[in-house]
């Protein structure tokens, strides 16, 4: 059973067509990177998959069931979403924010899970800090911990929808996060759909790259086929060399 099956999805907001004829399938244990220039429709696609935007054409099936047939609370046990930006309106502590993802756990289990996740994201010492006092990168990792906590104790198929979840992180932290995501996909069978801007991060960690432009999927496949100089030039207008690394994935070097 596919975790996610999108067929000929079309989305119109006001008079502008945001997504057209988008079809996409994600299997258990797959880490899929959504790539594309700004305004290509990556975030809109993710929001539609998260049930935030009502779509006009096509269909979305999550875990084998049409998205509109799911109840919010039921779906929340199997699918977690990390938006591009989350503003916290009141001075909550880090622990309280992550706890929002830990419904149904006793206090001791909850605190154990929170501490573990914060540790994994190397912000273990921030648990009692107030959110407004944290840096952007720290806040982003707190939100990620909350999103991971939401699915942590679910058995069975799980789907993470992540919108630029490392945009505020330095390269080392980016590596921490994506290694963790890859581990979850390979060892726990998580499916991950992540909007990624860094082509080399996508190449290094993702099983499949999906390239979008102007509301459509242009290419869908392995890094070696997507990250080709011709396609990068056509989609991004990026002049780049692509090197095949001995590790087995290509690397994109923009040309001066």
């Amino acid at each position, binding site marked *: 059973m596919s975790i996610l099956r999108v067929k000929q999805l079309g989305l119109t907001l006001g008079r502008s067509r945001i997504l057209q004829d988008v079809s996409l399938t994600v299997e258990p244990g797959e880490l899929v990177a959504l790539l594309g220039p700004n305004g290509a429709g990556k975030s809109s696609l993710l929001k539609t998959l998260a049930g935030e935007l009502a779509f006009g054409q096509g269909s979305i099936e999550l875990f084998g069931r049409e998205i509109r047939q799911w109840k919010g609370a039921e779906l929340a046990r199997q699918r977690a979403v990390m938006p591009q930006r*989350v503003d916290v309106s*009141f*001075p909550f502590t880090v622990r309280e924010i992550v706890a*929002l993802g830990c419904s149904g756990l006793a206090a001791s289990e909850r605190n154990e899970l929170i501490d573990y996740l914060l540790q994994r994201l190397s912000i273990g010492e921030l648990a*009692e800090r*107030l959110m407004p006092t944290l840096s952007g990168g720290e806040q982003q990792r707190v939100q990620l911990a909350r999103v991971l906590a939401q699915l942590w104790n679910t058995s069975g198929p799980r789907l993470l929808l992540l919108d630029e979840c490392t945009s505020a992180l330095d390269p080392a932290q980016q590596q921490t996060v994506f290694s963790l995501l890859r581990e979850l996909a390979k060892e726990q069978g998580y499916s991950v759909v992540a909007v990624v801007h860094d082509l080399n991060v996508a190449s290094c960690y993702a099983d499949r790259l999906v390239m979008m432009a102007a509301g459509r999927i242009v290419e869908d496949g392995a890094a070696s086929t997507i990250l080709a100089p011709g396609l990068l030039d056509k989609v991004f207008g990026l002049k780049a060399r692509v090197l095949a690394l001995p590790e087995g994935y290509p690397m994109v070097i923009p040309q001066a």
Partner: protein
Amino acid sequence: MATDTAKRAPASLIFMVLAALAVLAALFSLTNGAYPLGPSDVVNLLLEPTAAKPAAHMVFFDVRMPRLVLGFLTGAVLAVSGTLLQGLFRNPLADPGLIGVSGGAALAAVSVIVLGGSWLSDWTILTGRWALPLAAFMGSVLTTMVAWRVASRSGSIAVATLLLAGIAINAVAGALTGLLTFYADDSELRSLTFWSMGSLGHASWEDLQVAGPWMLLALLLAPLLAKPLDAFALGESVAGHLGFSVQWVKRATVVLSALGTGAAVAVTGLIGFVGLVVPHLLRQIVGAGHRVLIPASGLAGGVLLVAADSLARVVVAPAELPIGLMMSLLGGPFFLVLLMRMRIGA
């Protein structure tokens, strides 16, 4: 300046302190007035009500007790509604007045005061002594419903629009109230002025029988919204991702605060500041989590209103200051000092 870790008192301590303050405020309120009743009299009256002098019995059970209970419930409801609406609007400046509750109540109440003998005589005959509170309650609920209608699009509510609609409706209600004031004669002017400054002076068990259940309903159901409102702090869409039924939360929050505040305003008149200041202040002490914040706000709001009401009876005795006036007199400067001391952090 930013604190490294959140310094918070444990919830159990907060509740103990608030409970102690509630007892003190109640004692202050019960022993204070023209008829002398000391703390020992209060204890005796409570333990052996039949042994008391009839006059003491009357003053205690028919005047001071209903006033104490009404004051506490009103303060609690205003503070809890403020907490709920601040959570819903994700803004520490929200209060029950914002969604049109007080504007609508004021318009309806002033209508009854000014037009009760002429255009609205049918209403006053039909409802008798309940003409004013009933109208005020309906006014507050109706204006909230109008704001709600304006803000709803195909079954979902735009929270920002609800806020703006509330502001616009308040402006219209304020203008109409002003128009009525313009036509009022001297005695009507006097009573509508006093109504708009709020009072617990006429508290009776009959008032409580009518308004109490609505206020209790709001107070008892409010804690159910604690978890979803915590999630709302991250925004509506995140609350949805976490599995909360966002539309249901919005509906429940607005209905509870409109019913509770509407019932309170109906019997006490306009009392500002409690709904704004109490949640704001308590958030600094107990943190932003609604599980503790909602009940703590309720207790603190009750204590604050009972204490302010007792003070209002002392400062210009044997007369008394309107409680709404007292609240603003105390609350305004206090809030300003608080703002200047905090500067950062909401």
